[in-house]
């Protein structure tokens, strides 16, 4: 029996279970897998974290450099989110330029941070129009067992909360690094929650085989004030409007739970 056939049968099995309100791994439809968050695991990075979401494993490293501001934002620091689907994480991942999935992931995480104004960029200006902090947030997927977006956005937030930035002084228009470090100024706490549509039901935190069985995926990012900062629908299927609103309400609740896991860390 071909592996495509096997996976078809498996997908049917998953769909039937979800239709009857159950999941193959025993979780309830709105349950996350066990989550573990560690921080400070990369001493050479200014901030870092590792998140385990079931068997999905993601490391985020934050590096801090000095660079130029954007022309239209002379008084603000700059950050970028980059994601690597390194081939040790999955037989599906290949070395080479980032895949569209990897780019989508990084951009969804980026939007959550950017739109919630999680990083206080105005505090990251050193010389207006000339020198600002540049924050590199690198997402490194080490094992792919589904729902990389939630694992990555959680890891990104944990790593940002863990980040210390060097203090610089300006002497005669020259920037000088001191030996002091202060925490990266954080103003908000965006957390994303992803739901999959399987058999017309919404399940939270789909694992890999559920992702193969789902028709569509919806990721909603909530900030600390329960406002939505980002949404991304994925997958080749479509959703009913009422499903979307139902997903939003579930996500709001789940986001609060997840946020507590990171902030307490």
């Amino acid at each position, binding site marked *: 029996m071909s592996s495509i056939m096997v996976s078809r049968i498996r997908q049917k099995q998953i769909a039937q279970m979800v239709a009857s309100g159950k999941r193959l791994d025993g979780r309830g439809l709105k349950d996350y897998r066990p989550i573990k968050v560690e921080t400070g695991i990369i001493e050479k990075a200014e901030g870092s974290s590792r998140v385990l979401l079931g068997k999905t494993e993601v490391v985020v490293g934050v590096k801090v450099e000095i660079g130029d501001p954007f022309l239209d934002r002379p008084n603000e620091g700059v950050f970028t989110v980059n994601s690597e689907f390194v081939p040790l994480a999955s037989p599906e991942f290949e070395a080479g330029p980032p895949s569209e999935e990897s780019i989508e992931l990084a*951009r969804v995480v980026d939007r959550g941070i950017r739109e919630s104004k999680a990083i206080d960029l105005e505090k990251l200006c050193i010389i207006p129009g000339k020198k600002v902090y540049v924050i590199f947030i690198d997402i490194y997927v080490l094992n792919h067992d589904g729902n990389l977006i939630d694992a990555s956005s959680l890891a990104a937030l944990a790593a940002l909360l863990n980040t210390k930035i060097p203090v610089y002084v300006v002497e005669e228009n020259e920037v000088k690094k001191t030996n002091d470090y202060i925490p990266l100024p954080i103003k908000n706490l965006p957390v994303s929650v992803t739901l999959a549509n399987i058999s017309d039901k919404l399940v939270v935190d789909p694992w890999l085989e559920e992702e193969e069985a789902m028709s569509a995926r919806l990721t909603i990012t909530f900030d600390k004030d329960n406002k939505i*900062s980002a949404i991304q629908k*994925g997958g080749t299927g479509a959703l009913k409007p009422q499903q979307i609103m139902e997903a939003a309400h579930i996500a709001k609740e789940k986001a609060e739970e997840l946020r507590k896991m990171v902030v307490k860390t």
Partner: protein
Amino acid sequence: MINENGLRVDGRKPNELRLIKMEVGVLSNADGSAYIEQGKNKILAAVYGPREVHPRHLALPDRALLRCRYHMAPFSVEERKSPAPSRREIELSKVIKEALEPAIFLEKFPRTSIDIFIEVLQADGGTRCAGTTVAALALADAGVPMRDLVVACAAGKVDGVIVLDLNDIEDKEGEADVPVAYMPNLGLISLLQMDGSLTIEEFNQSLNLAMDGCKQIYKFQKEALKARYVTIKEEVEECLR
């Protein structure tokens, strides 16, 4: 960006669409093509296929391979854009493909590819939505069998007001943007993104307003398709360009 009369920077009311112009069958080489102007957006879409897949190992045994490339001309934006695809263009190519895929009977054409090319000649906010709308027309023009048309429109929040079909400035300076693609007869949403800051209630309003916008644009789509097939061919060709 909302004045004392409740009007927007370009004089529109909150729930008002920009001027829209659509034309179907504008390129002779493509199997299907269409052109849209929505505000200052000027976007072309072409469809090639179903055709042989290159490279062959990408062919799927049970359905057509759908591919989509959203691309901006270097001169389409204020500052010249490098022709190499940006990360943004790669993401939008993916979400537009996923917006159109549920509408297409891909299973009717196993081992083939259907390739959608969207070229933004001028960008003015909302290009992913206008690009989805015009790509659906090009698919129809190519005779690709579809469950429904797909039509897209954004809503969002500007100066505290929920507004329809944001233009470039509203998109950049506004509080939130919610692009939505809708299959009007199936009542399903196939593209949904959001960035900014909205309460759940505001999001709900935006989603509904965007669907209203989609339904209005759907009428233009149907007219454009009719014009392609009903109006006398010569007349069409003259007014197309």
